[in-house]
């Protein structure tokens, strides 16, 4: 009896309709979340790296921009600051990154051995350091202060001890220090 509202086929139709309605609801949620993720890129809350740059991890200490004397913060001609850092088992170099407040920063970092992660607490800076590649991410700190910078990618037994910090100081004080030193850090 196809017209019997209590027949097994009527039950199956009701179940199929409920399932279709729930599917539409789930698709709407997924589309909204995907659209907001795209908006985050447009709004620069997070932005995938535009250009793939490579660096030979076995020769980082010998040649190129990640030699020890070039690590740390440097003022660029446009007033922005570029920070260069290395991650290796189990520390960051420099261990303490010194940056000015209210200044656009570009962080360039690489790994000398395995995959590490660079995360600055209280910001959206959260990037993987993959051996062979240079990770580039922008940041800006409005207020002076200190932020923890732990490795966020398990990198073997000493991982939990691998962390650095970022010290944000007044812009003028940073400019004074930069006039005396080519590369800045707050390693004591």
């Amino acid at each position: 009896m196809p017209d019997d509202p209590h027949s097994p086929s009527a039950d199956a139709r009701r179940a199929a309709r409920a399932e279709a309605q729930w599917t539409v609801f789930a698709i709407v949620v997924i589309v909204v979340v995907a659209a907001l993720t795209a908006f985050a890129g447009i709004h620069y809350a997070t932005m995938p790296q535009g250009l793939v740059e490579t660096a030979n991890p076995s020769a980082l200490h010998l040649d190129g921009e990640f030699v020890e004397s070039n690590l740390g913060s440097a003022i660029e001609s446009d007033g922005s600051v570029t920070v260069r850092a290395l991650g290796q088992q189990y520390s960051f170099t420099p261990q303490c990154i010194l940056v000015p407040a209210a200044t656009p920063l570009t962080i360039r970092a690489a790994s000398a051995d395995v995959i590490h992660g660079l995360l600055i607490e209280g910001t959206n800076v959260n990037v993987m350091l993959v051996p062979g590649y240079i990770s580039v991410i922008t940041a800006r700190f409005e207020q002076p202060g200190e932020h923890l910078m732990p490795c966020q990618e398990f990198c073997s037994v000493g991982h939990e001890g691998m962390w650095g910090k970022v010290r944000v100081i007044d812009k003028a004080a940073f400019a004074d220090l930069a006039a005396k030193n080519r590369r800045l850090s707050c390693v004591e």
Partner: protein
Amino acid sequence: MINSPTSTNDSEALDRPRDSGPLGAAVLAGIATAIVVAIWFAFYLFVFIPRAVP
């Protein structure tokens, strides 16, 4: 009472919730999903977007 005999001629009353479809399940799943999505929106709007670096 828990062990009271059920009425055998009350099949219409038993069929009524079945006819309306799985409404209770939809409400329960809807509330659970809404809570998760609301938490996602809260982090997105009040933590993630304010940290944007234009």
